[in-house]
């Protein structure tokens, strides 16, 4: 007790802060850091299970080589997943921006619409999605064949993403719940005086959207984009994650190691994409402020 009194204010502040942070630090060391490091170790070593103990023996980059050059489907599935992310992300971000701008208007019954648009987040789960989307929902190709005729006439680079997006439109929408919330919460924070001032100066709805709303959502759009990429990459039903799961108990003596190596390859690729998006945004906003 006496000792404590001698501590300076700053030191006590440190102590108190770390006391609040302590659960996280302990948790990070005990249940998060160890598995991450262990996973890295497994991706570089052969795993041998004897009884209840696990032995690792160093194999270098062997499993990374296996994943990239030997496993027949991995690179294909990785490509599929990247295609999935590249197609979905822009649509999700734009769609959720549009929906949140619509929902942000003041009209009667908007509560009901908000409730509906947040529905997907509530029921999003692997089993539910696979039951609902794999077999039982009608694809839009049956409903409006003309759209497909039109899309089929496009060059291939345009055709395949747009057909893909249209085929998966419900899934895309179901991934946008959180993003709609992020935008909606951000839109609420725009000072209404800005709109009033603009209206007095004769700005219409259209101009107000482009000159006030959109610039204010820039940061939100970046957050949404990053969130979407991570969300889609971690989605357990995407092609590459399904492959990783089937490779966990690989029977060719590559148990655990191969799937760990695959996970880390995917992780690095996704981090590169996130870094690129962030860099683009950074350069873009610097250009603007000059």
């Amino acid at each position, binding site marked *: 007790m006496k000792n404590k009194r001698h501590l300076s204010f*700053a030191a006590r502040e440190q102590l*108190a*802060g*770390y*006391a*609040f*942070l302590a*659960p*996280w*630090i302990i*948790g*990070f060391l005990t*249940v*998060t850091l*160890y598995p*991450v490091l*262990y*996973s890295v170790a497994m991706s570089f070593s052969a795993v041998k299970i004897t009884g209840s103990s696990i032995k690792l023996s160093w194999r270098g980059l062997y499993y990374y080589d296996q994943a990239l050059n030997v496993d027949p489907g991995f690179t294909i599935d990785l490509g599929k997943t990247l295609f999935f992310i590249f197609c979905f992300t822009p649509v999700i971000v734009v769609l959720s921006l*549009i929906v949140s701008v*619509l929902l942000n208007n*003041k*009209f009667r019954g908007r*509560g009901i*619409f*908000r*409730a*509906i648009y*947040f*529905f997907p*987040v*509530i*029921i*999003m*789960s*692997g*089993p*539910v999605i696979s*039951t*609902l*989307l794999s*077999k039982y*929902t009608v694809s839009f190709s049956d409903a409006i064949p003309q759209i497909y005729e039109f899309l089929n006439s496009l060059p291939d680079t345009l055709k395949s993403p747009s057909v893909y997006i249209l085929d998966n*439109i419900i899934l895309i*929408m179901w991934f946008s719940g959180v993003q709609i919330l*992020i935008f909606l*919460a*951000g839109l*609420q924070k725009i000072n209404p005086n800005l709109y009033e001032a603009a*209206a007095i100066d004769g700005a219409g*709805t259209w101009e107000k959207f482009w000159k006030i709303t959109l610039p204010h959502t820039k*940061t939100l759009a970046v*957050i949404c984009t990053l969130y979407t990429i991570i969300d889609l990459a*971690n989605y*357990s039903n995407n092609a590459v*994650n399904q492959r990783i799961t089937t490779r966990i108990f690989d029977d060719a003596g590559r148990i655990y190691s191969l*799937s*760990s190596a695959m*996970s880390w390859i995917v*992780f690095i690729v996704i*981090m590169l994409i996130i870094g690129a998006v962030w860099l683009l945004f950074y350069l873009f906003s610097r250009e603007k402020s000059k």
Partner: protein
Amino acid sequence: MNKSAFIRARKRILGTNEKMGILPLAVILMLLIGIGFVFIYPILYMMVNSILSPDELADVSVNWVPREIYWGNYRKAIETLDFFTSFLNSVLMSAGPTVLQVTVTSFIGFGLARFRIKGKTLWMVLIISTFLIPDQVTKIPRYVLYHSYGILNTILPSYLPAVLGQGLKSAIFILIYYQFFASYPKALDEAAEIDGCSRFRIFYQIALPTAVPATVLSAVASFVWYWNETSQSTMFFGEKIKTLPMQLGIFTDRYTALYGAADALNEVDRLNEAVTLAGTFLSILPLLLLYLILQRKFMQSVEMTGIAGE
């Protein structure tokens, strides 16, 4: 027609600055209804088809409006899902971790927001990085780790990380609380401190009660995410504790075990789309009810919290 009547009509249709006119409103509603329909189409489809009898399911003329409500699918689905046990398991594995996770993340968020600690940036980066690392990277090592702790197939693989701020998407909740506590006036704290209030008491008697919006938001999101998580939980405690979504994942196998193989059976007992959809609906029904009760409060919380940092 005189001029003022014309202006009035124009105002009503196109709207003024204060009030939206009929035309923009109609456009907005049309768009919202259109997109909204695609949003909930699968759910409507599921609800309608889950009450179709086997005869009607085969009948092409019955599309959206069933002639009668056939509850047989639900009876079978309840049995296949082992509904009541699974439901209680789901509550046990969602409510518990949610309470722990929300409590602990609010605690951590408060610490980060209110104290000038050294190395704060480092901790923030580490917290965000735990969100970036996908679950499948750490799934197997966690399994090995929990195995060595001897806690597999107990409630602990879910409860232990939650109580240490490492639960499902804990990083998001820490950030929500961090942002909330960083933005409310510090004067309250200081006044309490002068009156001799301990830091912990400041947290739970002053700071936490003001953070109701952040808590509602975190609690609902956390509950839903825990409820729907299957890929890790199947591995960590799936042998002993089966939740509703887990049962749904093995629905076909369970049904076959209970009622026999699909093609060996007569029309009535065969596993059909309607039964599967009834099962799907049952597995999310508790969440739907919870959401319907809380949605107003939830939406208000979203508006007041702001999930993304500005």
